């Protein structure tokens, strides 16, 4: 056991500042344990959002020493002895109080994401899908919606004005999930990604992938494949030429 200094940002939308706490830290503890100790012993009204404390629900997102992290999965032995640990709320979303932010941006973007479209000719129980065909989408369904990727993405983090046109990495993997779903009946996912979700804003600097606690390869497996699919539809002259020539008599269908 040792005593460590924590700087925790406290305040709300009106303003705030860092509060310092000297707290005991035991072997094997994570940052969230320490925040709970601060609550129990120093500041009972310290606002923090958490649920499962096992890295499965994605509630306790915050920034620790400037890096977006889940507090429940950030072990204290990550930090050198004697170095103060600074905890702030997510800095891309409006602050509610202390470490809690208003993440409704992400839910609003999800509201605009067209849902899975079930195939018209299959009844429940008749779905047949091969494991190799569902695996790509399954990777994206590991997402626990901690919104660390949304928070880290500089497109909205540093440019508030991009929030309306840009849906963010969380929704890009949703778009990829559905575009790669073996039975999804819509064929406009990539157009929607480019035109409605602002896929073009992404400059693939990969911070979303870096902070993902589920280790989803957001950039390589979702964003870039979606950009490639868009490129195939819109910017590939060979495909474009082929379409011009062969289009007569048949309507475009999804690949494969």
């Amino acid at each position, binding site marked *: 056991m040792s005593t460590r200094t924590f700087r925790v940002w406290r305040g709300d939308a009106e303003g705030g500042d860092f509060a310092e706490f000297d707290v005991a830290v035991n072997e094997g503890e994570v940052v969230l*344990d320490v925040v709970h100790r601060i609550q129990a012993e120093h500041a009972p*009204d310290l606002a923090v959002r958490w649920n499962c404390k096992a890295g499965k629900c994605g509630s306790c997102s915050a920034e620790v020493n400037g890096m977006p992290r889940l507090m429940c999965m950030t072990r204290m032995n990550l930090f050198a002895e004697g170095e103060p640990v600074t905890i702030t709320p997510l800095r891309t979303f409006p602050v509610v109080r202390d470490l809690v932010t208003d993440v409704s941006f992400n839910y609003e973007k999800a*509201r605009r994401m067209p849902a899975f479209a079930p195939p018209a000719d299959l009844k429940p129980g008749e779905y047949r899908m091969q494991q190799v065909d569902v695996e790509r989408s399954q990777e994206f369904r590991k997402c626990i919606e901690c919104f660390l990727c949304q928070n880290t993405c500089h497109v909205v983090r540093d440019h508030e004005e991009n929030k309306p046109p840009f849906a963010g990495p969380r929704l890009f993997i949703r778009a990829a999930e559905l575009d790669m779903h073996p039975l999804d009946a819509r064929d406009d996912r990539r157009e929607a990604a480019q035109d409605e979700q602002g896929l073009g804003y992404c400059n693939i600097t990969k911070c979303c992938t870096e902070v993902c606690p589920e280790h989803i390869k957001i950039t390589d497996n979702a964003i870039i494949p979606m950009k490639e699919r868009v490129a195939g539809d819109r910017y590939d002259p060979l495909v474009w030429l082929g379409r011009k020539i062969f289009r007569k008599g048949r309507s475009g269908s999804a690949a494969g």
Partner: protein
Amino acid sequence: MSDNAIHDVERLACDVLVIGAGGAGLRAAVEARLAGKRVIVISKSLFGKAHTVMAEGGAAAAMGNVNANDNWQVHFRDTMRGGKFLNNYRMAEIHAQEAPDRIWELETYGALFDRTADGRISQRNFGGHEYPRLAHVGDRTGLELIRTLQQKLVSLQQDDEAAGEGPDKLQVIDETTITELFVEQGAVKGAFGYRRGTGRFMAIAAPAIVLATGGIGRSFKVTSNSWEYTGDGHALALRAGASLINMEFIQFHPTGMVWPPSVRGILVTESVRGDGGVLKNSEGRRFMFDYIPEVFKAQYADNPEEADRWYTDPDHNRRPPELLPRDEVARAINSEVKAGRGTEHGGVYLDIASRRSAEYITERLPSMYHQFKELADVDITAAPMEVGPTCHYIMGGVEVDAETAASKVVGLYAAGEVSGGMHGSNRLGGNSLSDLLVFGKRAGEFAAEHAAVTPAPELSEEEIAAAAQDALRPFANDGENPYELQAALQAVNGRLVGIIRRAEELEEALAELETLRPRIANVTAAGGRAYNPGWHLALDLRNMHLCSVATAKAALERDESRGGHTREDAPGMDPAWRRINLVASLDGDELVLTRQDVPAMTPELLGLFDPSELAKYMTPEEYRSTEAEDA
């Protein structure tokens, strides 16, 4: 203060109010909205974070995709055995019959389960299930379920928007806690609560309310449950005049993490054992062979060779004893540790590293691999895990009608963990996810029906003001810090009402709970109303306390051992107790217990079992009477 509070109350109304946004609540909401009703879902945390995400192994449904011998009768039989025949047989029957449809339906909402070679939903083995039965997605099935239902709700909202309907047709109000139900003449008419973010109050008028609030696990220190599990629905139901049954039965999952201390209790999925992991004590002995109870001898292997053959040839070998129902495994681990054969940190070893390849483990159990790597610095492909029992699930809950999920209070329904009866004295792994789908749907359906024939209720200013005053009381109190009181309550439950119980200890627990009662009534909240966790906990504490009293009282009353209730001073099952449910209700402020007969199984269902098996649970008259009827 109270005047201001009244003026600041947000007033809402709907047809069906769903309290709880886990699997059961969301499934109920989908059904009620599809029935054309205006629905409000109240979520204690953010939308999509409910405790359902923690479910790992899968959802049990006798689809017969992996073993064609499986059918609802076999599933029913396993469920009754697992619950030691204390289950509400009709619930177990409906559950086994409807679970496959509920799972298939999820695929039409976009769920992506793991597949069999012929493209159907893959099913995995699990404790107590005779055949591979659990539809799953790796070891994150609960997440898939919650996300699928969440996205289905969003799609219904999109449909409403496209049809030109207002947003009030289906609303999800997140980070909101309900503190009180409004009841008039034996019927519910609404609920009162606060938004966590602002502390602002909310009163919702609704003729039908579905409780889907989950369990009570946060009353224990070592638990796999998230902070939301404070028994809100159990307590709301009691205070509204409904009854709870089987509150003495709490499932301790045999395998929770034990080290480091900060993660003690976090679940290690049963799939580790279903996929080949075995339990060993500090002497390296695979001890579960020593703990096969008489009633299960026919189904479980008594030697390692047969047990290991079962993984590849389940039709000709008996199952490994590591896959006994959870209560048996938890007790066995407890005994090993007590006998001094535990690990350094007071658990036993769960070893899959020496039995399966690293690739197999990381593919089948990705989140377990991840969890141990990141939280305990243990590579489970190379070293065994240390595990021990953790409070996981309460079988007891609101007494409901099997068909409609209706409680005794008109208009009040309950589904999922907050309801009781379905699982009897012990729940099988995998039956929880299917339970919440089957009965969540039914609760939504019948709540919508009830709302259709019930006039819109009115809430009076007086009752709202009274509820507001109640909720604000902790700010005016001069008592203790809520965190200390929660720790005290957890200590009582952990020490005296845990996995192994004794009459004197339960009496002591009740006495200590009694001294805690005034302290909790006088709990103090510091600070303001905006996102104040101290205040939130202060309000949750009384629910936790009420549930703890119900559990301790019922545990003291039932002097036998069955499923999730083990009495050291009354070992073994007593057939006389098999016929009795303990029913808890409130008489004023006092919790009272009454005895009630367990519904008797129909002859057809009794006929699914071998009489020699029934003889292990029932008095001869019970099963012989049906033999006579059969003849």
